[in-house]
């Protein structure tokens, strides 16, 4: 592996890691395109490898949040139940909907969420 690639991998790790820890998420969205570009991985492999990279990060940052007393277990468990249920629905819908249309809806949600959050802060 070339030195340039190694440095790009380290840089990608720092970027995805910092965002995931500081903002409590979003590391995966950053990691997928970075892995696809730096490691020249096809889309499916980049997605799968991103989860492999993000899982230890999430464990480490969750431990820090836990240590700092930020975890509200009631909210966490209820949200997790919803996420698991929604995840199953999403996986079942995956091949039934146009991925780009879903991505478009998702992007509009993100922009609206950003504006709403900025205004309410």
């Amino acid at each position, binding site marked *: *592996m070339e030195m340039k690639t*190694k440095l790009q991998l380290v840089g990608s*790790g*720092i*970027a995805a*890691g*910092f965002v*995931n820890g*500081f*903002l*409590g*998420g*979003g*590391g*995966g969205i950053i990691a997928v395109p970075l892995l696809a570009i730096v*490691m020249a*991985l096809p889309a499916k*492999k980049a*997605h*799968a*490898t991103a*989860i*492999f*990279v993000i899982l*230890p*990060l999430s464990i480490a*940052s*969750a431990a*820090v949040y*836990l240590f*700092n007393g*930020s*975890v*509200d277990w009631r*909210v*966490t468990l*209820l*949200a*997790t139940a*919803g*996420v698991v*249920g*929604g995840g199953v629905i*999403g*996986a079942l*819908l*995956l091949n039934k*909907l146009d991925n*780009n249309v879903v*991505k*478009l809806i998702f*992007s509009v*949600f993100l*922009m609206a*969420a*950003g*504006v*709403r*959050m900025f205004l*309410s802060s």
Partner: protein
Amino acid sequence: MDVVWIVLCGLAAGVFGGMGMGGGTLLIPLLGLIGINQYAVQAANLISFLPMSAVVLIIHFKNKLVETKGTPLIIVPAVAATIGGAILTHATNEKILKICFAGFVFVLGVWQFVVAVKAMKGKKEEKTLQTEERE
């Protein structure tokens, strides 16, 4: 009543997550909208990601979709950076944290919008080409 809202927020974010999009990135602002504090929301997102991704990862490993070569070069600095980031979170005022997150999801939204529109345009052009070839 907030029990229903919390589960619904999780459900909505989970649907996008199940389709391979960043569901967690949506869970954080959704839970914030129903008045849960930013630190608890971020912690909930990190923890809710663990069981789902562990199961998904086993499936991906079985399907040989995980590329482990070179990943220690990402994971080791990433773990150090994530711990640093998480410590910084607790030293940051909630209002500033919310503004940072708002900026992050907005930029992400614009980027995903551009990616989706480009992919849709590409698909349309491909279809036109195929029709022309058939004719």
